[in-house]
């Protein structure tokens, strides 16, 4: 299959969307943006590639008949989880090796090495042991990113160690922080067929009762999905870091255009788009064809963007996923003044010390952010029907709720507000649509090195 790829290199996350020649989405991938942009976009693309493979798996499973076919279909989610687990474990091992290596390299840690090394080994072993449970269908994970998952588990492990009289918490975490950087700036090669085989082995081994039929069925699915070719031919990049993408200038599009186009593709009635990402907020007006007619962005100061929520979550030792749901429990919104990312944590602490409730303060913080966004929208011309909310913060249910209220208060209840589970991919989708234009126009663009080497 021939595909085009759009990559949105954001300040916090990097997204990739693959379209086939008909413009149908075949895969989406996301990873956290890290210090090495090239790796970030390669990994996002790997993820999209993986997702596309899973689409093949799904298709193969649907086409399957014979003994074990039905059971194999039921096990698809589990297979997916097991696949993720394999990836996780591979990265975990890489992390382990890196941490040990950094112990001998860093002069800061060298003297305490004898004490730190065994503790680190034990923590990693513990994570390894508990990992499979996190990847069973239905298990609640705080994030999908290795950095977050491993980070949370490591911090918990380090805390426990420190409490039991092991090496100090901050030193352990320091080793992790250093090593995760290294791990993230390397791209682990992903042999998808092999990982699939191992994942499938995990699944049938777990269910001994099902026996050989399940194993055979899964094998067939895996083999047939692995056999399909996947060729990426045109790339277009966008996003905050797009200038640093390893793409030629012609293959880079403004994020404003991409977000507008992506949102319009998903919700064709869209006239106004609000995108709240990690470090910037954009308000975009598009015409009936998805062409941008005006826009405003907030990019000089990171106040009130996704990062802000990240800091708050850190401050409360919560996952980003948990922030919105907790705020939803509020009964009384506290008026919060700081939208400055740095001072917000201080204000949070101050208010907690005053005895105000976590959820009420959080509700206030969410409101403060959305009020800022409303004012940007007003600046760009207002809110028109239909209105589509995109970007990472759209995954936060409290943000969505507050936005709905504010739009109703200020622009009437008649405005349709679209959100989409794939909102975070709008920019990448828009970029992919531009790539499709290029493909159709016969523009012959160089594919980046990382894509050639992978396919």
């Amino acid at each position, binding site marked *: 299959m021939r595909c085009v790829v759009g990559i949105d290199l954001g300040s916090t996350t990097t997204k990739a969307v693959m379209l086939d020649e008909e413009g149908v989405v075949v895969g989406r991938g996301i990873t956290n943006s890290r210090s090495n942009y090239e790796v970030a976009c390669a990994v996002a693309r790997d993820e999209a590639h993986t997702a596309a493979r899973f689409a093949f798996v799904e298709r193969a499973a649907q086409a399957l008949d014979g003994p074990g076919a039905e059971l194999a279909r039921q096990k698809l989610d589990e297979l997916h989880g097991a696949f993720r687990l394999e990836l996780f474990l591979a990265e975990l091992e890489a992390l382990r090796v890196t941490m040990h290596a950094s112990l001998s390299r860093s002069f800061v840690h060298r003297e305490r090495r004898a004490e730190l090394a065994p503790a680190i080994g034990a923590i990693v072993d513990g994570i390894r042991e508990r990992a499979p449970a996190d990847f069973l269908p239905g298990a609640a994970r705080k994030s999908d990113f290795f950095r977050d998952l491993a980070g949370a588990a490591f911090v918990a492990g380090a805390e426990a160690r420190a409490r039991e009289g092991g090496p100090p918490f901050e030193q352990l975490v320091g080793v992790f922080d250093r090593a995760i950087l290294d791990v993230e700036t390397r791209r682990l090669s992903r042999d998808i067929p092999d990982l699939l085989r191992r994942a499938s082995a995990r699944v049938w081994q777990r269910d001994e009762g099902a026996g050989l039929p399940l194993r055979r069925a899964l094998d067939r699915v895996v083999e047939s999905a692995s056999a399909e070719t996947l060729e990426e031919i045109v790339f277009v990049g966008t996003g905050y870091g797009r200038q640093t993408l390893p793409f030629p200038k012609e293959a880079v599009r403004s994020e404003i255009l991409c977000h507008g186009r992506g949102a319009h593709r998903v919700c064709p009635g869209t006239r106004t788009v609000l995108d709240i990402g990690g470090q910037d907020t954009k308000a975009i007006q598009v015409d009936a064809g998805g062409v941008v007619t005006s826009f405003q962005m907030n990019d*000089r*100061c990171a106040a009130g963007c996704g990062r802000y929520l990240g800091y708050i979550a850190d401050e409360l030792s919560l996952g980003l996923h948990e922030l919105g749901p907790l705020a939803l429990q509020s009964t009384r919104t506290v*008026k*919060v*003044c*700081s939208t400055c990312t740095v*001072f917000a944590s201080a*204000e949070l602490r*101050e208010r907690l010390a005053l005895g105000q409730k976590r959820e009420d303060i959080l509700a206030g913080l969410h409101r403060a952010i959305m*009020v*800022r966004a*409303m*004012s*940007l*929208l*007003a*600046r*760009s011309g207002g809110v028109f029907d239909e209105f589509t909310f995109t970007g990472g913060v759209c995954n936060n249910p409290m943000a969505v709720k507050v936005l709905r209220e*504010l739009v109703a208060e*200020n622009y009437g209840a008649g405005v349709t507000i679209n959100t989409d589970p794939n909102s975070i991919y709008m920019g990448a989708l828009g970029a992919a649509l531009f790539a499709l234009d290029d493909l159709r126009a016969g523009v012959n663009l160089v594919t980046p090195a990382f894509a050639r080497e992978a396919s």
Partner: protein
Amino acid sequence: MSHPHDDPAGAVLARARALCEDMTFAEVRAWKGANPGRLVIGHMPIYSPRPLLEALGCLPIAIHGGGDQLEIIRGDSYFQSYICHIPRSTIELAVSGRLDAFDGMLFPSICDVIRNLGGMWQMLFPEKYSAYLDLPQNFDMAVGGRFYAQELRRIAGELTARGASALDQARLRDAIRDENARRAALRALDEVRVETPWLIRASEAYVAARAGGLMLAREHTALLQELVARVKERDAQPYDNVRVVVTGSFCEQPPLDLIVALEKAGCDIVDDDFMLGLRMIEGDIDEERPSGDLLDALAAAYLERGAATASRYIGAGENGAALLQKVKDCRADGVVFAAASFCDPALLDQPMLEAALGAAGVPFTSFKFAENTGQFQVIREQAGAFSDSVKLWGAA
């Protein structure tokens, strides 16, 4: 003391405060209902010819932005982040319909922000009356005075054309008398504050004065007189505080909590430049004029007795002289500069005032605020350090 039941002044203060905090302007609506056909004219802070408006049968309403309770949603979309706060909240009030009962707005010449806000008004609300009132910076009665009287006459004419009463010297004289009476009442209140600051907090005097921008002078005089009588019944003791003059907030107003925070940090605010819309003229306005035209009285009051603010041209390099006089008059230990963030006039004035204070050995401290600031920690620190220092080491 804030309990209205135990505090003799509680009720009158609560009324004033409620009035200041009511961003729906319910009383204005009520007045309009009771006085059909008469006009409600809003005006921005600093000098506004309120007696003239009253003489034309209008209700002048001072607009001081939206304070710290108003949520700014559309207002921000009209102003870049480096512009002060008051125009945003003022626009917010208008576009959210809160000023619907108003028939017009006056934008006196305070600074370029207010000047351009007037232009924005013309574009946003073409159906409403709006006028920019150019205050002369030439203080010669024959030149600037003439121009100014013409400006006032123009505005009076325009309002009359919109349904206000015609300009009438007798009514203008009455309005000037009412205004002079209000000034006397304000002076009486100020005197209580200077002589016995423990009887009335600056934050209390503030709401009492500010409420005056929302009613006719005559009513305000009654309110002030009652307040002065009531606070004298209070049974309060002196605090171990330092005496300060607050300056710099003549236009955008600090949130009330900020004034309270200053007091809590150990400062008695014995004089300030809040609310200059009512205090811009020092002394009385003439009730007679040789020319027979009382517009000249308003012009002369502005030219000859206008208080020194950053909006007014100070010619002879005497910046700071008026402030030093104030410090002396109210026996202050020091000065607190509290200017709105991004307020060019106040902030450009400040180094000159500081130089004057420094030369006279008067201690000072300075900080910036926005009308909706919710964090006072830095301000408390600075004011606290200031009062600590005066207290621990004596003045200066």
